């Protein structure tokens, strides 16, 4: 076994030092009936590297790779181009094979990038402070609702009909078990929802999303004013973080907590994970914030350095009184985010956002020209909703057979809802060429 450096001679000599005859003696506390005499039955023995590569490569080729086809899926996960240097830095053993920076003197690399990440997230969202990442956008959203509950001591959360239904489900699951009253609104494909009227003095928070699942953009300034007047918080969710390169940030609208899915920057699609949740809030709420935090300090010689801080909020100190049970975050994904965003910079990030928007505008115009196809959006960033004359899921399946991945049928996310089955979410990023777009148009012409 190539990963195991002990030889039989080593093992014998070590057993002699320990003073036992065999390894089995070390397992003497295991109930006898549970001690297996040999390898677990029914499983194969070890394979060489070449064999493992063959096995996994074979599985991988059974999938239709996004980069090989015209590709227009979004709905919370986006295909963007990540510079090659990002992954190469990530693969440096000093980053890849390190643990949570409990020993700051030998973890300043990890700690400094976390501090940079927190700053970047605060800047993008327009908020005061951010944590060192969450598992993903949906878990971050659930944590934000629980945080609002802790801050307001209120029990009710209103979830927008524009919120990604998976985010809604994770919030319902997580906060439901805590006994919160989660009021999820019906899907809002038209983007006309107004939640201000629903906020009352039992409301802990309102959770809204921009761009919404259906692509609509909103300014939540009025909602924030209204909610704050009732003592409720507003949580703004962003599932496509590239939109923050172009649009007014939630912080400027008055949001109290901003949660984003950060996958778009630095991270591959990965069939849904690992991703990275961004979590930002107001300074005054920082001690109610879940997750790890990196803070600036000085060392014994007075030099600037970084440490994990405010850990009295966390489970390993506070145990059942912790703000969250979260322990591992998405460190490497956060690093990818930080490197990619550093490469983009102000100019690059803003241009990337404008390219995404421009490509989507171009595609929307092309699709709007198709007979029977209606673009539902007055506003959007890089994703919008089209109404097809047929069931979207069937259309998508047919186009997939032609090696075109056309978008996400809304019915995949809302299978039980009437009136949504003809809706298709279509995303367009900097990775889509005009010939990709034309292939989609031709494909739709054929199958519609």
């Amino acid at each position, binding site marked *: 076994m190539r990963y195991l450096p002990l030889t039989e001679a080593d093992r014998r000599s070590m057993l002699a030092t320990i003073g036992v005859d065999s390894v089995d003696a070390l397992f003497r506390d295991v109930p006898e009936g549970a001690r297996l005499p040999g390898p677990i039955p029914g499983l194969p023995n070890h*394979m060489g590297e070449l064999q493992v590569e063959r096995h996994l490569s074979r599985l991988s080729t059974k999938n239709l790779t996004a980069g090989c086809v015209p590709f227009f899926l979004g709905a919370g996960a986006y295909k963007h181009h990540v510079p090659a240097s990002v992954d190469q830095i990530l693969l440096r053993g000093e980053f890849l094979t390190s643990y949570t920076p409990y020993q700051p003197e030998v973890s300043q690399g990890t700690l400094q990038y976390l501090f940079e990440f927190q700053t970047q997230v605060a800047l993008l969202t327009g908020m005061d402070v951010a944590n060192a990442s969450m598992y993903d956008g949906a878990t971050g959203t659930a944590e934000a609702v629980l945080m609002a509950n802790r801050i307001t001591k209120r029990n009710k959360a209103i979830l927008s009909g524009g919120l990604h239904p998976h985010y809604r489900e994770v919030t319902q699951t997580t906060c439901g078990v805590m006994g919160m009253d989660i009021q999820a609104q019906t899907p809002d494909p038209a983007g006309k929802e107004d939640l201000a009227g629903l906020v009352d003095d039992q409301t802990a928070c309102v959770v809204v999303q921009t761009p919404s699942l259906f692509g609509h953009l909103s300014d939540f300034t009025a909602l924030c004013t209204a909610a704050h007047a009732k003592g409720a918080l507003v949580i703004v969710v962003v599932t496509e973080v590239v939109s923050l390169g172009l649009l007014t940030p939630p912080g400027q609208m008055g949001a109290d907590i901003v949660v984003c899915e950060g996958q778009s920057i630095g991270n591959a699609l*990965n069939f849904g994970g690992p991703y990275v949740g961004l979590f930002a809030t107001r300074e005054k709420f920082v001690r109610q914030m879940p997750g790890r935090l990196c803070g600036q300090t000085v060392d014994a010689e007075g030099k600037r350095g970084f440490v994990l801080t405010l850990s009295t909020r966390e489970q390993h100190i506070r145990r059942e009184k912790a703000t969250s049970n979260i322990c591992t975050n998405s460190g490497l994904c956060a690093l990818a985010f930080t490197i990619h965003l550093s490469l983009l910079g102000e100019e690059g990030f803003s241009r990337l956002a404008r390219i995404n928007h421009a490509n989507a505008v171009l595609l929307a115009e092309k699709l709007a020209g198709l007979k029977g196809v209606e673009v539902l959006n007055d506003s959007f960033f890089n994703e919008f909703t089209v109404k097809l004359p047929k069931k979207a899921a069937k259309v998508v399946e047919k186009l997939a057979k032609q090696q075109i991945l056309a978008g996400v049928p809304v019915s995949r996310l809302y299978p039980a809802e009437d009136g949504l089955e003809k809706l298709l979410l279509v995303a367009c990023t900097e990775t889509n060429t005009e010939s990709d777009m034309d292939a989609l148009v031709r494909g739709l012409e054929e199958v519609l």
Partner: protein
Amino acid sequence: QEEALIFELDNPGVVGVDLPEPATTKTKLGGVKARGRIGLPDLAEPQVVRHFTRLSQKNFGIDSTMYPLGSCTMKHNPRLNEKMARLPGFSDIHPLQPESTVQGALELIDQLAHWLKTLTGMPAVAMSPGAGAHGELCGLMAIHAALEARGEGHRKRVLVPESAHGTNPATAAFCGFSVDTIPAEDNGRVSVEAVKAKLGPDVACIMLTNPNTCGLFEPQIKEIADAVHEAGGYFYCDGANYNAIVGRVRPADLGVDAMHINLHKTFSTPHGGGGPGSGPVVLSAALAPFAPLPYVVHGEDGFRLVEHAADAEGKPFGRLKTFHGQMGMFVRALSYILSHGADGLRQVATDAVLNANYVLASLQDVMSAPFGGPCMHEALFDDGFLKGTGVTPLDFAKAMIDEGFHPMTMYFPLVVHGALLVEPTETESKSTLDQFIATLRHLAEKAKAGDAAFFQAAPRLTPRRRLDETAAARKPILRWTPPAQPVQAQAAE
């Protein structure tokens, strides 16, 4: 070498990526305004690469030295696994592609699930939790759902030994349970009597780590499981220390109802400075019907994802993650598992336990081991050997850094005074262990010889000397702010 913050390297006007002009200048922003300057720094690619390369050089990793953090299972991370996870057929597929276009991905999840179930002897596994603590949440939610389904939603008490990881009580509280602590016995174990004394009709479950956080196998685990089951509760096993028994002991044979598996520990997906992890949870038949969405099933026309309650056979308690779980970690874990096989995984546990016992046996004359041996995969010491020296466990650990080793876990578990918890893992060679042992012997003797100042001044050879954590927490500075704007973003005090 010093390295400024990326923001301090800002050079407005350069770019680190070259992007074309947007295809059109038309916009469809509705009433939302385009934003002004964000405040991100501009750098060229060479500057960014150098910045992060230099940051990396301030870190220790397993690649560079032994990293014996107890409870963390810092084993070798094979690069094969990284290569496999980057195959475009895995990394470049969208979670919502038609199932017909992701059959290989679904099959991979199914294969990994098969391994996890067979290794643990459990009938079901929930794949989506994003980390160990998330897996605990999954397990406790399944227990919560099962109790509700039984009409016993009143069972709100969760038993947790005092030696448990903080995540256990935190998770129980997160799920709305109350936490009742079971005291540890003098031998570092939990006794069946102590558990029985706490059992009652309001007990939902026990959360037990096994091997426990002292690095010891709970010898009465079967009796404890039986007692809990008899009292109508469930047995949640914290699988953080599964590496000690993988391939040698099936948790199902111990009476476990739910156990999370940290793929980033036992199955070597890299921890990456704090994640991403992955925490699938194996479930007993009693809990399996409540497993969360989504999950993979194998039907007549291939693999299928069950994403909605209406399509599920059981009564899923809900959804835990945006999509289907940490696919990237699944690929790495399966690559690791296939590389080891049933024989290799058994050897993993064997060598992990052997290495820990070797450290324990080689150091127990100069350091103090509260519970003697044999241990499982971790060797626990307390600060008895430092008594009267003026050297704290922290000082001792920091001195190790200057000798080139990452320190062990300190001050955990809480059940012994000044704990020093060493987990070498199976991927350290005897010769590295011998160097490690020699270094610790030397340091222990130096401490006893009365050279406290040496320890208190350590580390000396690191990019930073000891950092003031108290100051950091008292007046938190959590982000960079431009020096021109003197207002600093500080948390409320």
